[in-house]
């Protein structure tokens, strides 16, 4: 009960700071929208190759784009935490009886909500291009993308609390995110990859998320692919939240 109340308080505070500058929602959506407009058309001719997953170019690409949005949208959130460490905000909050888990969750859920808003906009933008999606699939996809956002926001805060410095934070976080993206089959399906690359991709949790998201866009809600992708992301998200909350408890400015 206290955890929920604390989390809600922290969430409200950070959401109200965020909502005063809604431009960030738009800025965050520009990159994925550009992929949609300027990259996805290339896939139309590739989609006829053997080995390309079924469903057409947009139904293959948009799910990956949402996973990418979750990954990159959330990975940078640690930046503002580093500023807060310097401003003494974290220290001040840690002196209060507020739950340390709530400090992390309140912030990370705000980031998750942002990503869900952006995802909804992106999906809406993709419909004119011929994207198809069932309502149930939409709900589960948003849940999956939300978990991915929560996972990477938590990791981002965790790394920020450990490094406490923007100059090392940026290279670490983006160097780690890029191979995750490339090995997830977001840009081109991994079914087109040589076998060694497919092996690497199989151990990347995000490729399972992408596979699950693609299945959901085809309406295959109750399949093993979906269950596996959601389960992997959910377990990792729980671990990341727990780790980051612990780091919050130890953080000193």
């Amino acid at each position: 009960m206290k955890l929920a109340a604390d989390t809600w308080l922290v969430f409200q505070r950070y959401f109200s700071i965020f909502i005063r500058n809604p431009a960030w929602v738009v800025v965050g959506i520009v990159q994925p929208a550009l992929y949609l407009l300027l990259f996805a058309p290339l896939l139309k001719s590739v989609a006829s190759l053997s080995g390309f997953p079924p469903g057409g170019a947009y139904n293959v690409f948009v799910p990956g784009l949402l996973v990418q949005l979750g990954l990159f949208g959330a990975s940078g959130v640690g930046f503002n935490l580093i500023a807060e460490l310097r401003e003494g905000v974290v220290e001040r909050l840690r002196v209060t009886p507020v739950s340390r888990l709530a400090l992390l969750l309140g912030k990370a859920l705000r980031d998750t909500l942002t990503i869900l808003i952006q995802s909804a906009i992106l999906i809406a933008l993709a419909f004119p291009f011929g994207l198809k999606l069932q309502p149930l699939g939409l709900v589960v996809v948003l849940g999956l993308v939300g978990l991915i956002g929560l996972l990477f926001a938590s990791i981002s805060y965790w790394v920020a609390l450990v490094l406490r410095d923007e100059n090392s934070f940026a290279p670490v976080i983006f160097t780690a995110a890029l191979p995750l993206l490339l090995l997830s089959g977001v840009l081109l399906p991994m079914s087109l990859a040589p076998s060694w690359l497919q092996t690497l991709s199989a151990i990347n949790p995000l490729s399972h998320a992408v596979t699950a998201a693609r299945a959901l866009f085809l309406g295959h809600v109750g399949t093993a692919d979906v269950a596996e992708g959601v389960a992997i992301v959910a377990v990792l998200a729980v671990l990341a939240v727990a780790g980051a909350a612990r780091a919050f408890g130890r953080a000193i400015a």
Partner: protein
Amino acid sequence: MPNERAATAIATSELRRTFKGRRGTLEAVAGIDLEVHHGEIFGFLGPNGAGKTTTLRMLATLLPPTSGEAQVAGEDLLRHPDRVRRKIGYVGQVGGASPDVTGRSELVFEARLYGADPATARRRAQELIATLDLEVCADRKVKSYSGGQRRRLDMGIGLVHRPELLFLDEPTTGLDPQSRARMWEEVARLREAGTTVFLTTHYLEEADALCDRLAIIDHGRIVARGTPDQLKREVAGDVITFGVRGEVGTALELVRSEPWVKEASVDGETVRLYVDRGETAAPSLLRLLDSQGLELLTLSLSRPSLDDVFLRQTGRSLRESGPAA
């Protein structure tokens, strides 16, 4: 009135904190025994890097001690940091308000974190805005505040839940003299309200003007403690300098044998006396000179400063250590 108050606001035993770095282990706080009474303003005076902030962070539950024990606000710091948090307020060196929100919303949010309902939180925020003289800026973003306004807001955030013990880390560093005097007033007002204040400072004047008792800390150790007056008296007592019409040597011989004179010497045309308590020695001196028919020309009474205390204990002047960067 809170009942079941412990005898002391803070009691520590062998409190120690070491940091592991690339060049070995640094002992930031090297075993500190402290006792802070209820309702007093207790100061921690020392140069930068002496271990003041580290000690404060440990007592405020922000940093686990490497070893030692502490009772803070009647609770065991190590076993019940959560209970300690409910009873203390903490104002860090850099404050802790977000630049992008209003002062009022920070106060309301802070009150809510301590469990106040929205209406109570708004009322409490308004009270603090009024007492801390923040009316003009309460609804502006914190980044537009002056240094003094910012510091008063920080203090308000620390006081939102009416803590019985308030920690202030370098409360006036970087403030102009006027804002500093304003902060001193606020701290003194806390004492009137019965709040115990534990503050750190590297300003001698601040320790002298504000603190009921203080501890001087250097290299993680307490090197002296007591009231500012006690500390200064321990060093050298007071200094009386006087000049008389006629032979200065006669005056020296005369006073030297008096029991209240610790040490006497001639310094040019004047006599310098070291005495325990200047305020009682001066009248005795006047009576003595008068009885011998010696006419007094000049008389001055000076007290050793806390810097003399620091100098005596550490071999360095605190002023030379310089202010915070």
